[in-house]
């Protein structure tokens, strides 16, 4: 068998295609983006005409995947952890409706917040929805889980969560691929009322979901991804979840770990394996990437059972991603700590690219805002969030997708007038339109700057679903066309931009200013591809 060198995200893309998937539905978000990109570039995806276009946001993505599952075909929806907040309504209720064709939710968490605003652990969502969760410890498992996850979903009749973290997403290793499965044929759900969550039906469906938990547990206990590894030294038993298993085994190559270990890559937690570990060992150490979810449940409220060590008692840090060093320390192993970083080394934070249109917009905004007190610009998620840093320091918020418009409205409601929202074109399409409608309906005194670089740039220049539609969306939502302005953010238009900003900041009502110039990264890669 030929071995491919795949990133974890690529392994999932390949696994999904080989598993007979008919459609991937996603919104870009680090570290999940490349799953969909890999499928978009895959020759078999083209040959089979697998659906692979970006969705407007994670909620529309997941719902569309659920619709494909309704029609009997296999579908995957991919997103980053905070994207699941947006799709949570659909996801949690899909556990109630159940599926027809296999449905996988792939969610990529970002502990240590390399490119995110929090480090929430998606396993809580899986547990909350009461569905099986898969968490690979290797790229090979990531491939196998994506490929076999559809069948697991069809067997359990619920969506299956495939949870990865940044290091699994963006690390390469050899992967051996298996036989390519056929796609499912179009078929209607066996139960025609399955997807109607009217209370009377929902109550029945909920009982079904509760009854299914025994099956999910049995599958976890028999899963090839979970196992009990014997060890002679029972002074300690270790539970290692997902990629944490690799960090543990780094210290014990070739099966030399003296302690019994339960490797977990499928949830619900395999009770029998963990009870055996608890029975045999004096203490337990829990290694999990993300929040101490397993640790909390094993420790219990009164902590009066076997002592449990991990993130809650300080054996490991409470926050941030794990690594081999933290685990060595937790195991009391000594190691050479390398050389210290010399004081001369300065931080090098990310910055807006030279020549980026957001820069020109910020310079003009700062000038137009100079007459007002500080703290009036609410912003959003995208490259332009870097406008919080010097030399701009223009923006005062970055919370969640679309919150710039709604927070500006709330501040204006409180009397902070003018209030300004700074949002990108793709974020506007993702979650800005409904907030704009609220503002229009109440004639709020806010100015919305939609800094349009005609792409989803922070994640690598994907197509924005609002491309060419922003003015018509604003008009359709009810913004007065006299207060919608478009300008090219270039130094030569600086005076004009400042004048526009000043005028609209002073206007008592909703106005929209659209500085529009293609992302320079996207423009240069487009030119390279044309050559």
């Amino acid at each position: 068998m030929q071995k491919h060198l795949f990133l974890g995200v690529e392994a999932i893309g390949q696994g999904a295609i080989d598993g007979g998937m008919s459609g991937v539905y996603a919104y870009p978000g680090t570290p999940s983006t490349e799953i969909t990109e890999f499928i978009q570039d895959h020759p078999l995806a083209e040959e089979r005409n697998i659906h692979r276009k970006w969705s407007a946001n994670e909620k529309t993505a997941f719902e569309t995947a659920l619709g494909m599952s309704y029609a009997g075909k296999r579908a995957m929806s991919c997103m980053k952890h905070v994207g699941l907040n947006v799709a949570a309504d659909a996801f949690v209720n899909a556990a109630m409706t159940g599926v027809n064709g296999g449905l996988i939710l792939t969610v990529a968490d970002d502990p240590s917040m390399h490119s995110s605003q929090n480090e929430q652990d998606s396993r809580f969502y899986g547990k909350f929805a009461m569905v099986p969760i898969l968490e690979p410890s290797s790229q090979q498992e990531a491939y196998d889980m994506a490929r076999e996850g559809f069948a697991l979903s069809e067997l359990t009749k619920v969506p299956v969560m495939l949870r990865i973290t940044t290091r699994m997403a963006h690390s390469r290793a050899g992967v051996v691929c298996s036989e390519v499965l056929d796609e499912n044929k179009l078929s209607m759900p066996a139960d025609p009322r399955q997807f109607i969550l009217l209370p009377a039906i929902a109550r029945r469906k909920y009982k079904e979901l509760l009854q299914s938990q025994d099956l999910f547990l049995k599958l976890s206990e028999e899963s090839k991804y979970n196992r009990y590894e014997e060890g002679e030294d029972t002074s300690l038993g270790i539970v290692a979840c997902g990629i944490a298993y690799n960090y543990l085994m780094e210290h014990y190559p070739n099966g030399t770990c003296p302690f019994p270990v339960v490797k977990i890559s499928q949830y619900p937690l395999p009770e029998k394996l963990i009870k055996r570990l608890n029975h045999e060992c004096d203490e337990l150490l829990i290694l999990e990437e993300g929040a101490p979810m397993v640790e909390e449940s094993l420790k219990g409220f009164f902590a009066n059972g076997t002592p449990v060590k991990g993130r809650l008692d300080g054996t490991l840090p409470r926050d941030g991603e794990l690594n081999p060093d933290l685990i060595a320390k937790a195991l009391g192993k000594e190691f050479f700590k390398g050389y210290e970083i010399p004081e001369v080394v300065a931080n090098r934070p990310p910055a807006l690219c030279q020549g980026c249109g957001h820069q020109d917009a910020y310079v003009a905004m700062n000038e137009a805002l100079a007459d007002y007190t500080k703290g009036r610009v609410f912003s959003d998620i995208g490259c332009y969030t870097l406008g919080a840093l010097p030399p701009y320091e223009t923006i005062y918020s970055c919370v969640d997708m679309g919150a710039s418009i709604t927070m500006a409205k709330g501040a204006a409601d409180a009397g902070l007038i003018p209030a300004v929202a700074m949002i990108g074109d793709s974020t506007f399409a993702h979650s800005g339109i409904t907030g704009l409608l609220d503002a229009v309906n109440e004639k709020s005194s806010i100015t919305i700057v939609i800094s349009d670089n005609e792409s989803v740039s922070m994640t690598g220049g994907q197509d924005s679903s609002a491309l060419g539609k922003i003015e018509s969306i604003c008009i359709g939502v009810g913004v007065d066309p006299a207060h919608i302005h478009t300008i090219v953010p270039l130094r030569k238009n600086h005076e004009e931009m400042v004048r526009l900003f000043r005028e609209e900041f002073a206007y008592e009502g909703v106005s929209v200013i659209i500085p529009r110039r293609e992302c320079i990264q996207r423009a240069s890669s487009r030119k390279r591809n044309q050559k």
Partner: protein
Amino acid sequence: MTKLNLELLIKLNMKSDIILAGVGGQGILSIATALGEAALADGLLIKQAETHGMSQRGGAVYSHMRISDQPISSDLIPGGSADLILSVEPMESLRYLPYLSETGYLVTNITPFVNIPNYPDIELVLAEIRKLPRFIAIDADSIAKEVGSSRASNMVMLGAASPFIDIEFSKIENGIRTIFERKGEAVVNMNLEALRRGRAFAEENR
């Protein structure tokens, strides 16, 4: 021989743990790709963790590249155990010193990439590099220009690091052939020349 020394010896024979460092946009992943191709051709196992996302916008970026003839567990290199730091930027080479092993080499380009207002005096940076017991500091940009294009500087760097990586040099040359094949014979040859010049410099200055 103490247990520690024995462990070290086994490690050196079997494994190359490399930290690749640079600034977003400098293309350190092209080095990783060339090395990955070479390692695969040599029948070796690889794990390689990359930086994607926000820091690619001109921020500090790094990659953990692990090559071994034995199964590799962790995707990340443990602290104090990297055999090599390979940096295409001098200040960035120092950022990852906590990963360098007691016997490890630091190989860095000396041309600074200045995109922050508080970039330190380059002489202070180079002085820190010279304090290390084993290092190669090379002007990869000048050598790259001599062989035909400043864009080949990453291949000069790979050449300079090649004496410290347990992969046959001819396999690394083949790796470069594979990744530049599509761009024609002239580009392949220029990058091979860049690689060889880098290696020659390291051999003379180690």
